[in-house]
């Protein structure tokens, strides 16, 4: 199975994009078994993958991310594309695994009112939420508070760094619909007073 670069897919030229050529080489070395190269990819994408999964509402974001990497690593030798394609592919896998996890959770949930405890996915939330929180987690929560469509578009565009065409491909929407959802999502975030507070925290 060979995955060719889908037509029109591309990546936002964010700070990582300036290193695209470099990451093409890193990906190539990872495919040939270079552990250092793989770790560089993982370091690069894992935080964004986790945040994206949390925006989707994954209770077990760490587990889903692990499954995502497991599948990506398993098929890495047959992956044909550059670093940009790999990022798009990884987040597509992550989205599918998140959907699987959500369905499994719904099936196993017997009742809502008094359910068995589940470990929090991230060891930090408890302390962060109790003690005041960190800006990244707050930011993820703010995006997650958007409507599901807007939240996913914003997270794929901003957190994952995918461009409109790539997001449209993943979500099965038209590029126009993605732009509209992004515009509305960003407008809603701009109007949220907590965004200003977050800015103050960052500042």
């Amino acid at each position, binding site marked *: *199975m060979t995955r060719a670069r889908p037509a029109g897919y591309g990546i*936002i030229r*964010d*700070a*990582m994009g300036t290193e695209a050529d470099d990451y093409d080489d890193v990906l190539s070395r990872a495919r040939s*078994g270079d*552990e250092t190269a*793989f*770790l560089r990819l*993982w*370091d690069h994408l*894992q*935080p964004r993958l*986790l945040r994206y999964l949390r925006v989707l509402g994954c209770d077990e974001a*760490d587990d889903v991310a*692990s*499954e995502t990497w*497991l*599948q990506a*690593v*398993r*098929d*890495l*030798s*047959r992956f044909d594309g550059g670093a940009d394609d790999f990022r798009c592919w990884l987040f597509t896998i992550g989205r599918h*695994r998140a959907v699987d996890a959500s369905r499994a959770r719904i099936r196993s949930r017997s009742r*809502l*009112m*008094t*359910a*068995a*405890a589940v*470990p*929090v996915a991230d*060891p*930090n*939330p*408890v*302390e962060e*939420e*109790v003690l005041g929180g*960190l*800006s*990244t987690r*707050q*930011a993820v929560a*703010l995006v997650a*508070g958007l409507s599901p469509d807007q939240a996913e578009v914003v997270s794929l*565009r*901003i957190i994952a*760094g995918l461009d409109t065409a790539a997001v449209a491909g993943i979500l099965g929407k038209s590029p126009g619909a993605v732009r509209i959802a992004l*515009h509305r999502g960003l*407008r809603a*975030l*701009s109007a949220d007073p907590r*965004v200003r507070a*977050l*800015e103050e925290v*960052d*500042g």
Partner: protein
Amino acid sequence: MSTDPPDLTEPHDPALDGLFRALTASGTADEMAGRPAALEMFRASRRRPPRFRSQRFRSQRFRSQRLRPHRLRLAVSMGSAAAALVLSGGIAAAYAAALPAPVQHIAYRMLGSIGVPDTHPPAPSANVPGRAPSVAPTPSASATAGRCPCPAGTSGTDTAPALILVAARTQVPPGGPDVLTGRLAPGGRPEAGVRVRLFEHVAGRPGWRAAGSAVTDASGAVTLAVPHLAGNAWFRLAVNSTGNSAGNSAGNSAGRGGAVSPPVLITVIPPVYLDLAPGPQPDVDVLTARAPSADTGDVVVLQERAGGVWYGVGQRVLGPDHRASFSVLVPSSGQVEYRVVMPRTTAHGPSGSAPVRIAARAGRAKTGGRARL
């Protein structure tokens, strides 16, 4: 990795730049916590999955159940030794999802509770080079209290072999099992037939205690099953400087300088339950947090969800019955969602309950819906 915001082509409020920076910030320590496991997974994917039939896998499973140890079970890899050694190799491969799809699914059904993943359809097999698993359980050495007789650093001298230890799961429920995988590979070359020792440091107790030993297989690997964890504990492997070759000449180099692996922390996550019951008044409900595995005096925090974000609205200390109660007002309209979280302590990691929703009741006067604690 830079934390600059993305270069959006769409117009957006500059006030969002701070938000973008936060969303694309470098990974936190917790986000990067799975790095060693990811590396081990990557290594495992480069090895050839073991080839044995599912029936054989089942038979080995039943055979191994008769070998239940009293403390820690150490699984020792011995190359292509006896068929009785297959099970633990199967476990290691199962953790890496390196088994053939049908076998992987069987392993998931049997061992899913301790972290073995299922196969995902479609499950194409990767084109990976060979691997020689086959590890088997052996009784652990007698556990004796004492300091870890290894260097304080995470590895030995420059000439010492590199020794690593990875946990299949870094978080387990109280009493839950876990599997540790170690690898001895100085300079990237696996050392076979070297006896390595496992040390355990239980959180809150002084010193390291010996927990057993095992002998590396042809790939330099050992697999160690931890059947019962009551509290947070660190584990590390060590090869001492006197040499511990177990008869295989390939293991001699391990004895030159000694080595110790970086410690691996396994955190126990106690379950927390949140029960809803009617309160003494019609407009008051009582939420009771239960954490049977936690300690008396541990703090639990009640949180209320608003705008997709959880906010702390009160905290209590668990009593002798491991319970703590909160009284909350029934909302006048809509519904309010609560959960209880328990911050980490020395003995356990953080935990949280499933959410509980309290909905407005018909005919109730509109007096607000916030928590009354």
